Structures are given as structure tokens and as C-alpha cells.
């Protein structure tokens, strides 16, 4: 019987080695897999390349991973924010490398990585600094930049519910990068609130089919947490 459910965060993350390329889900804090990131800090893998939309907020989660010196390079669309002080300091000190990618090209490159597309022409970024040095082409009178797919060794994502096959539901805008990152990593590790019985998820509503998921770990209901007091 297939079961992708693992018992602990540490078991889920045990084989992440130094130098791994890791996609981490989330847009700001929504959908950020906080428990998996905390586990990665404890686990200690270093010289990581991280792909995320942002470069950490405040001092917890991704920001704490950065502050712990485990990340050599970050690939993202929006590093600088009001509360990105951890990244800002590392970047100004030359301690972290940044690859800046327009958000939609980041999403489409990850999608292409999961979908077996070799490269694609996108209109986004044409004529800007972020397309400098990239191949371009005019197609039907419109100008495009050639972008290549993005894949990773691991994806760490957060979802709402899973079954033992790894089928996933998300919640509201916390869905964001989860489904595409799950498809683009060799090993996809998911934290969920609950693992539900097989058959409890409506086949019409499954967002990420289990084929894209390798490990699932339950971390308890988000509604039990302090900052969620009052949410239905």
C-alpha cells in the first residue's frame, strides 16, 4: 500500500544534502511552509540555492534560514520589502547571490520545468535590464525573450489537506506556487494540516495530484494557532 505520509519533519528532510537546489513555496507568509523551513534549519544543510518568490519576511521562516547562513543563492522576483532586513544585510555584505526574475517568468519557468518544455518565448521583460544578454525573437510582430525551465532537487511546500497518495488541497491565496513547484522538483515534500482518509478528497477538486508528491507530513490545524484566532 502506498503511503507518502512520513511521521516527522526530520524524517521528511533527512536526505537534503549540502548544495541542494530547493524550491520553497509561499508568497510572503501565505503558503510558506514554516515547519519545514524550521526543520531545514535544524537539519543544517548548507550552500543551498533557494527558489522562492521573496527573500524572507521578518526574522522567522525563510528569513531565519537565510540568517543561519545556509543559503548561497536566492532566485526570486521580489526580495526587497519593508521587512526583508535579513536578506538586505546579507546582500549588501556580499554574502548571498541574487538572481532576479520577473514573477510571471519565474512561475512559467517552474511550470516549464515540471511540464518537460525545453524553453519558451515570453513577452515579459523584453527590452528591460532583466532580459539583457538573453536571446530574443520577433513572432507575429511581437517581441519575445527566450527563457529556460527551472527545476530543483527538492520542493518544500505547504498545503491544507492531503490523502495518503499525496493528493493535495490548498486554501485561498496560499495556493500560489505550491502546485507548480510540486511538479518541478525531483523530491516534493509537503506539510499539511491534516491527512484525510482516501476518498475524502473530491477527485474534481484535487489541485495537486499525488503523482507530484513524494512525502507528506501533518503539522496540525492552522486554526489552532495564535495568529489564526477568529478565522473560521
Amino acid at each position: 500500500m502506498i503511503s507518502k505520509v512520513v511521521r516527522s519533519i526530520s524524517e521528511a528532510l533527512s536526505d537534503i544534502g549540502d548544495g541542494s537546489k530547493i524550491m520553497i513555496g509561499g508568497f510572503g507568509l501565505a503558503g510558506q511552509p514554516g515547519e519545514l523551513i524550521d526543520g531545514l534549519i535544524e537539519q543544517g544543510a548548507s550552500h543551498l540555492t533557494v527558489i522562492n518568490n521573496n527573500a524572507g519576511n521578518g526574522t522567522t521562516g525563510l528569513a531565519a534560514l537565510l540568517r543561519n547562513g545556509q543559503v548561497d543563492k536566492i532566485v526570486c522576483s521580489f526580495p526587497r520589502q519593508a521587512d526583508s532586513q535579513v536578506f538586505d544585510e546579507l546582500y549588501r555584505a556580499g554574502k548571498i547571490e541574487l538572481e532576479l526574475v520577473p514573477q510571471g517568468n519565474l512561475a512559467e519557468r517552474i511550470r516549464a520545468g515540471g511540464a518537460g518544455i525545453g524553453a519558451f518565448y515570453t513577452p515579459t521583460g523584453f527590452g528591460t535590464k532583466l532580459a539583457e544578454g538573453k536571446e530574443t525573437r520577433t513572432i507575429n510582430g511581437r517581441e519575445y525573450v527566450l527563457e529556460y525551465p527551472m527545476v530543483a532537487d527538492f520542493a518544500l511546500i505547504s498545503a491544507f489537506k492531503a490523502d495518503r497518495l499525496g493528493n493535495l488541497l490548498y486554501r485561498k491565496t496560499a495556493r500560489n506556487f505550491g502546485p507548480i513547484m510540486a511538479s518541478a522538483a525531483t523530491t516534493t515534500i509537503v506539510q499539511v494540516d491534516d491527512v484525510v482518509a482516501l476518498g475524502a478528497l473530491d477527485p474534481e477538486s484535487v489541485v495537486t495530484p499525488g503523482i507530484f508528491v513524494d512525502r507528506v507530513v501533518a503539522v496540525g490545524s492552522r486554526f489552532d494557532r495564535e495568529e489564526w484566532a477568529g478565522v473560521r
Partner: protein
Amino acid sequence: MFAERLTRNEVAARVAQDIPDGAYVNLGIGLPTLVSNFLPADREVILHTENGMLGMGPEARPDQLDPDLINAGKIPVTATLGASYFHHGDSFAMMRGGHLDVCVLGALQVSQFGDLANWSTGEPGAIPAVGGAMDLAIGAKNVYVMMDLSTKQGQSKLVDECSYPLTGMRCVSRIYTDVAVFGLSAAGATVTQLFGDATVDALRDLTGLALIDGTSA
């Protein structure tokens, strides 16, 4: 230069007048989000937020806060009836594919031909961040900019050629400012509406551009 200028809320209200009933609209982050406060009650406009939602409602009140429901500016929002959620790949496909009717963005500079600069001042040492700006700039059927016409130092932000790094080329079709509304095209900028004491000649002086007078059109 001009004594009588519209407030930001007044500019937002002016933009809102031009959003048609039934439109799918993205209001970027920051200033343009004010537009949602002025949409006429008899029009139904569907708001898109690029982090994965159609049917975004007003900002969440304290008792409505849900950490899983935020907009592109990471501000807690609400959902309207008929909303839908989707992932980033689908959300940006929707934008890039030209499905949004209108996008309203802020700007550092806009060229008279519609080039947009709104993501970086290009200062050495500044940490760059682009987010979805480049996707929004090229994606919507109509890209409108909402901005003060001048910087605090009195320099025109409508320019012949952008000196700041570009967000997108030839993408802005209309600019709503505190002193006038401009239409942009390959022929250059046309003044389509004046506010307060602004005149086309005074705008020509400020911008240094051979603005077309479209106010009587």
C-alpha cells in the same frame, strides 16, 4: 507649477470613471488600489490579484483577517461571491495571455510613447525587486498609469525617454495625473483632459514635449 491639483483620491475617482461595467481589472499595489474605493455602485468590476485570485473584495477588517487571503501587496483582503483561486502559473498565464481588460499601475516615469519605468531607480547599491510589474505592464489589454505628473523636485515624470530602467516598452496607453489625463501612442502624448488651472501650454513647458491638444475632442 500648478496651484490647483487633484488629490490622490480625486485622481483615483477619475480613473474609476473609465473602468467599464463587467471589466476584469488588476490594480497593482500601492496607490492604484485606491481606485477600488471609487468604482460606481452600478458597475460590477472583477478584481484580479496576481497571487492567485479573481473576485478580490475590499481590504479585510480586523475581524475578517485571514492569513491565507492576501493581495499582491501582501495586505489581507476579502473575497466576493463568485471568486476563484488558482496557482501562480495560471495567474500569470491569465495576465500574459491578455485576458485582463485594464491594469492600473504607479510609475516613476512614462515616456510619451508608452514606455514604463516603475520598478527600479537604478541607483547603485539599491536592492532590486520587480515582482509582477513586468508581467502587468505587458499583459493587460489596457495599461493605465496613475501618478503625480511631477516629482517632489518639480520634474516631469512624463518624459521623452525614460532614464530609469524600463519595466516594459510601448505598453502604457493612458496616464491619469493630478493635473491632466494623457493618451499615449506611437504618435506621442495627447492631453485629453485638464484639471484645475492646468493648460496644454503649461504642460508643454513642464514636460518639454510637443503635446497634442486633444481636450476639445
